[in-house]
């Protein structure tokens, strides 16, 4: 069991150093450091609004940091040209929380979409690739359905098939477990494990569900206040003793993340300040 | 049943329909319709005054359009307005002594040239075939445009007994 991934020999696929970024005037990252090791499943957790999804957007170059460095496969993402960025994105699969299937196209055309856009493969080969990917997620029979006819879990699996159509080096999962029933959850978990194990695809998961993460992830980062506040093995991290992990995994109301949004003096706001009782 | 192909076919139909409408508008409802009525021959007429007659105005005979005005110029010597008309080739039996007049369609309508037929009798050979207009002919008898201002002026002068 891996407990300290910094002892990894191979250079990490994603290396983040001193990442600082602001969004809407608020600091999202304040000198964030983390590594995503190759061929592993890494989970990123944290309270809502800590910029977990924002981190994925930085990895794909949708957002630019104010300072710091973010390298994917040795390339500095913020230094890429539009062409270089698009080339990089072709090697990254991204699974949206709401699947983001193109509503105009059938399941088959959705999975075929990246192929049609970036290759000039003969229709026969294209069809074989798409059906292989759909078979991998168990939805070959649903190829001719429209996205509106799919359940949430099925839509997510179609989106996963689309994300892996180019056999990417990295898949980013944005909240893949939200809104799934236990069966669909188990199916998605199985797919993440299978893809990682059989294809060796590096996976990054952004999620809240520790129980689900413990089943798939090799390593967990807990992000809060723009920094990594805890990291480690998913089975051990809840007990590492820091107050962050105690509040987050224990589900406590108050702690480093306060119950009260910062506000002025309560008595003063009610007009009671200084009045004789 | 490729859905993509049916889109393309429908779109093609739409574009064709649009262009057909454009061709209809441009050729059937504008002066272009008058420019292309087959082969024509040219005749001229000199008027004292053409009024508001414009190039492209119709030339009519008994109310039927037989051609159009192609040019209006001022003859520097005679100081008359020389109007050139293109008459359809199929109207090839217009008597040579017909007269041309500048008329107004309705009270305020556009002006046009009305051709009143003559007898066509050849004075040298009264029993022979009638003389007809041909390319380069000129109308001998003409009647200028009726000017509203002249009419009013005439009325004021001629109607003077009412003043006395």
């Amino acid at each position, binding site marked *: 069991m891996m407990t300290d991934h910094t002892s990894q020999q191979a250079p990490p696929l994603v290396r983040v150093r001193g990442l600082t970024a602001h969004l809407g005037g608020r600091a999202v990252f304040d000198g964030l450091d983390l590594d995503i090791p190759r061929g592993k499943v890494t989970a990123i957790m944290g309270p809502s609004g800590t910029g977990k999804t924002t981190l994925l957007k930085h990895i*794909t170059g*949708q957002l630019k940091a104010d300072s710091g460095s973010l390298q994917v496969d040795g390339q500095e993402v913020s230094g890429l040209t539009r062409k270089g960025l*698009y*080339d990089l*994105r*072709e090697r*990254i699969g*991204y699974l*949206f*929380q*709401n699947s*983001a*299937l*193109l*509503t105009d196209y059938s399941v088959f055309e959705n999975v075929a*979409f*990246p192929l049609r*856009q*970036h290759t000039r493969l003969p229709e026969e080969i294209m069809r074989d690739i798409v059906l292989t990917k759909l078979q991998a997620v168990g939805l070959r029979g649903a190829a001719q359905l429209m996205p509106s006819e799919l359940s949430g879990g099925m839509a997510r699996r179609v989106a996963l098939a*689309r994300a892996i159509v180019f056999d990417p080096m990295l898949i980013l999962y944005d909240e893949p477990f939200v809104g799934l029933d236990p069966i669909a959850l188990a199916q998605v978990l199985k797919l993440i494990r299978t893809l990682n194990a059989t294809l060796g695809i590096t996976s990054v998961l952004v999620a809240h569900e520790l129980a689900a993460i413990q089943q798939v992830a090799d390593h967990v980062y807990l992000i809060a206040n723009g920094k990594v506040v805890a990291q480690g093995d998913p089975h051990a991290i809840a007990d590492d003793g820091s107050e962050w992990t105690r509040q987050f995994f224990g589900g406590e109301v108050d702690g480093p993340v306060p119950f009260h949004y910062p506000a002025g003096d309560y008595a003063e706001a009610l007009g009671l300040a200084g009045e004789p009782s | 049943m490729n859905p*993509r192909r049916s*889109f*393309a076919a*429908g*779109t093609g*139909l*739409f*574009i064709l*329909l*649009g*262009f057909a*409408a*454009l061709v*209809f*508008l*441009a050729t*059937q*409802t*504008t*002066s*272009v*319709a*008058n420019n292309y009525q087959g082969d024509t021959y040219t005749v001229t007429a000199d008027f004292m005054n053409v009024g508001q007659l414009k190039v*492209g*105005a*119709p030339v009519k005979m008994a109310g*039927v*359009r037989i051609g159009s005005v192609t040019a209006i110029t001022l003859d520097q010597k005679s100081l008359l307005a020389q109007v050139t008309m293109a008459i359809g080739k199929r109207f090839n039996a217009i008597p040579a002594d017909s007269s041309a007049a500048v008329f107004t*369609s*309705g*009270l*305020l*309508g*556009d002006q*046009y040239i009305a051709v009143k037929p003559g007898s066509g009798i050849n004075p040298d050979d009264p029993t022979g075939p009638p003389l007809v207009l041909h390319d380069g002919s000129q109308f001998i008898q003409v009647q200028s445009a009726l000017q509203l201002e002249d009419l009013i002026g005439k009325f004021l002068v001629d109607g003077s007994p009412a003043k006395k």
Partner: protein
Amino acid sequence: MSAASGRRNWLLDGLAQVGDAGLFLPTLLAAIPRSLRHFRETVRQLWFVGAMSLTLIMVCGLFVGMVLALQLYYVLSIFGGTAATGTVVALAVYRELGPVVTALLFAGRAGTAITAEIGLMRATDQLSAMELMAVDPVAYVATPRFLAGVISMPLLCCVFCAMAIFGGHLVGVTWLGIDNGTFWSNMTASVNVWTDIVDGVLYKSLAFGAVVTLIAVHQGYTTPPTSEGVAYATTRTVVASSIAILALDFMLTAFLT
């Protein structure tokens, strides 16, 4: 940022929208070469934007022509000038009513559809998904719709005008008894192909098509990704397009004549 201050500054807000849309135009135009790779998408949008508006345009054109002929016949009969009915129908439709009414209908039918569709794609992350599949959403979504709108409008306007002439003929000749030859010969004597058809029908409708689709695409593309935002953007497309069409019509008329 608050809604209240946004409402107070509606004038500034409107100006900012105009500027923003103006800045969006170069982005759209710059993506034309890349969007030609997705030429099929432009053809598909021509179907949705243009061909699907055809029925509406044809029916409305017919009725506009019919009511114009009816009104003009009674006014012109006072002067004994009913022969000019066809002429006036044609001139009114070619110079003003055709382009303007077609553009207003187009904004309501196709403009709103474009805004709602792109807005919904934004709200459901479809645009981000394209971005992450290394497909430029401007070149794949925005520019094909813009091109389709610019191509469709003149075609739709021609169909509208043809239907209006047909409607005018139906009422004037078939119903009210104007002589068929008079109807056409008066029209052909007074309508000029350059100043009326090209300047009126074609230039104006091309300009209106560009403005309406620019507004529609821009509103959809920049809408807040919520259902409320999409509804609001759709309304704004109609309002902004209508104002833009009529203001631009005045300017073009002043400029072209």
